[in-house]
């Protein structure tokens, strides 16, 4: 396998294309509304009408506007059909020959599509995720070729450092720096791990990338492997993503078949293999040390850092752990150069970020925007605001570790620093929009319940503290809490944040703290009142010695 072979595959693939291409979304969102039947219907209609030499039906990855699925796109013409049913198929196929069709059409010029900037999702919705040829046609594996044949490992690391890429898993640690640390740690065996244990409620960016463009992640991992000196990669993907697992397995098999994974890739001395490890449903396994324990076959619990995985990771070897989206950014960075990437985004946050829009918003789906895009543009312009003319109250970012950003802060640019300043985090990219009907203490209780259920149980503050915080929040929501309970809650938030062992516990109080910061009135309103209207200080039913009035 060499560059010429790649070009031959791409040319063959191009020659195979027909005049008209019908793209049918086959990512999990549309699949759940029977996109597979739509695709089968389209294929049958093409066969029945004998248009096979002019029309091609292609199963593609996520086409972004998930709420209107199944989505079907027709080229040329840039037509987008929404909520397509299998029964619509014959009419859709006939329309490619000029016949009128009644299938609902979407607006591809809507800001939802127009304001997007696709780097990670460039191939999503365009290529067939189940065929490596389709990825190779879209410049696939050219980055790996360049790195292996033209760059020293150090150059690859420098390129990533220069690009300014930061980890997309949540914490935003500079990716190049992480690579450099692993590269500089001497060891006979090193590992590259792709963290695909996306577990935040409302987040589905990584799933979409894996389902829509699995090869970009594989290529990113192979480049990382070369840069840090690793020959083995693991993708840790949660079992709740069966389609992503299936497509990854297909992708790995295909890449091995034509020699893009395995021994002597591109006739260089570089060997790289990738295996899949499937998570068993624990949220905490997205934490890197717990993830590694799980890959090793142990109970998935975090351990104190240092040592960091870059020094001592899987089986004690230096290990590079990157998130799916981070790795999917690598091939374009190598292909187009660090300067190109560094020119996108803001001063400290470079490139683009994929967000999963969910909640009370008209356009639910996947968006990719440059860093620094104002939240208002994402939510109101692209997302179309809250449905039925309701007013947006807050946007929750960062899942259970994040916070709620109130409507009056919507002009905040989305970058790591700005969100942290508001007491939230970038997180992995889940963005849950809430309208005026949402009650913030209930939101806080929901996220606390999530953290309580997902705490691994290893350290006391997280295991027992989340239970008590959840009890107090429940008491507040039930209007049974006193002002003393509220201060006990705040004290616990401080303690759990500062004493927990891993990120799950340290960030578990965030939804409470951020809603208390911006929506304190809602909490105060729910407190039990004395007959004179003052907030109750002492508890009613429970024995008084169990409470401490503040």
């Amino acid at each position, binding site marked *: 396998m060499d560059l010429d072979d790649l070009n031959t595959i791409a040319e063959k693939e191009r020659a195979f294309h027909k005049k008209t291409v019908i793209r049918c979304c086959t990512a999990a969102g549309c699949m759940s509304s029977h996109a597979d039947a739509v695709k089968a219907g389209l294929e049958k209609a093409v066969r029945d009408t004998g248009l096979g030499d002019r029309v091609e039906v292609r199963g593609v990855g996520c086409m972004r506007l998930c709420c209107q699925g199944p989505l079907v796109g027709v080229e040329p013409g840039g037509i987008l059909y929404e909520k397509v049913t299998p029964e619509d198929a014959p009419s859709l196929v006939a329309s490619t020959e000029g016949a009128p069709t009644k299938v609902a059409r979407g607006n591809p010029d809507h800001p939802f599509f127009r304001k997007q900037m696709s780097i990670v999702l460039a191939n999503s919705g365009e290529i067939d995720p189940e065929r490596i040829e389709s990825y190779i046609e879209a410049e696939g594996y050219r980055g790996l070729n360049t790195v292996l044949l033209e760059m020293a490992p150090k150059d690859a690391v420098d390129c990533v450092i220069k690009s300014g890429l930061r980890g997309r898993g949540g914490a935003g640690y500079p990716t190049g720096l992480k690579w450099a640390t692993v590269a500089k740690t001497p060891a006979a065996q090193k590992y590259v791990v792709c963290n695909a244990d996306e577990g935040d409620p409302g987040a589905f960016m990584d799933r979409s990338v894996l389902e829509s463009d699995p090869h970009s992640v594989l290529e990113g991992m192979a480049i990382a492997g070369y840069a840090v000196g690793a020959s083995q990669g693991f993708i840790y993907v949660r079992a709740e993503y069966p389609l992503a697992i299936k497509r990854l397995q297909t992708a790995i098999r295909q890449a091995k078949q034509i020699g893009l994974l395995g021994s002597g890739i591109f006739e260089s001395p570089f060997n790289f293999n990738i295996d899949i490890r499937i998570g068993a449903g624990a949220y905490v396994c997205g934490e890197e040390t717990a993830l590694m324990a799980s890959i090793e076959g142990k*109970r998935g619990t975090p351990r104190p850092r240092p040592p960091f995985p870059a020094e001592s990771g899987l089986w004690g070897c230096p290990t590079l752990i990157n998130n799916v989206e981070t790795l999917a950014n690598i091939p374009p960075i190598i292909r187009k150069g660090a300067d190109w990437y560094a020119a996108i985004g803001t001063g400290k946050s470079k490139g683009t970020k994929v967000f999963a829009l969910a909640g009370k918003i008209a356009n639910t789906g996947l968006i990719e925007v440059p860093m620094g895009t104002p939240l208002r543009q994402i939510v109101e312009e692209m997302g179309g605001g809250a449905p039925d003319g309701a007013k947006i109250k807050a946007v929750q970012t960062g899942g259970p570790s994040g916070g709620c950003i109130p409507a009056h802060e919507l002009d905040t640019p989305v970058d790591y620093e700005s969100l942290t300043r508001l007491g939230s985090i970038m997180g992995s990219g889940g963005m849950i929009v809430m309208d005026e009907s949402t009650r913030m203490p209930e939101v806080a209780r929901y996220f606390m319940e999530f953290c309580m259920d997902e705490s*691994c149980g290893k350290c*006391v503050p997280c295991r027992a503290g989340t239970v008590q915080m959840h009890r107090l929040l429940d008491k507040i929501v039930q209007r049974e809490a006193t002002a003393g309970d509220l201060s006990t809650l705040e004290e616990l938030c401080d303690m759990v944040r500062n004493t927990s*062992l891993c990120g799950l516990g340290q960030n578990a109080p965030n939804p409470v703290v951020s809603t208390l910061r911006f929506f304190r009135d809602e909490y105060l309103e729910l407190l039990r009142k004395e007959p004179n209207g003052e907030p109750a200080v002492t508890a009613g039913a429970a024995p008084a010695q169990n409470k401490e009035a503040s």
Partner: protein
Amino acid sequence: MAAKTLTIDGKEVSAQEGATILDAASDAGIKIPTLCHLEGVYDIGSCRLCLVEVTGVAKLLPSCTTHVSEGMDVHTDSERLRKYRRMTLELLFAERNHVCSVCVSNNNCELQALAWQHGMDHVRYDYCFPKWGMDATHPLFGMDHNRCILCTRCVRVCWHIEGAGTKNVAGRGAKSTIIDDLHQPWGESDTCTSCGKCVIACPTGALFSRGSTVGEMVRDRSTLEFIVNAREKKQWIV
């Protein structure tokens, strides 16, 4: 191995490279409260009682797993740390059913002693009163899950000193529980050697010798120390 000099609570202390802050402090006679730490087995930093402040580090660090470094300035007993420690203890007491007056370990309990040392005269949180059972199927020992604080000392001695691998943790969060083999009654375990190391290791009254009643469960840790010293340092001191 190079020696490191550091300051703990204003006292200049020297320690070997690779030693933990906890080692260095105890050598210098400074007592840092611990619960999951047990001499002879590796540390996991889970009880969070031994957290200390290190000047220049924003986060609190567990002294049992943090190695000393040159010039480190450690504070083990600030008001903030005392507050957090007391809260941690209160959380533990509220979590399961710790009733000292009927406990086999009364007056010989590390949890009780720590609570007393930290002036924990009452618990501010609602008691959870979970319904945990008791395993009395083993001919020599018993396990009362109501008194378990999930420090996993028993698991670690079982795997790393005895090498039997009987004890383990199942479940998640507050529903975590210590199990034997594949979550079967202790008495039916194929792997348990009845060595009793888990009972020696337990800081509370969760693991006990059968036949002991209130306040009778006194643990002699010298056996564990003897084995570990003999194995690791080749010191056969009785």
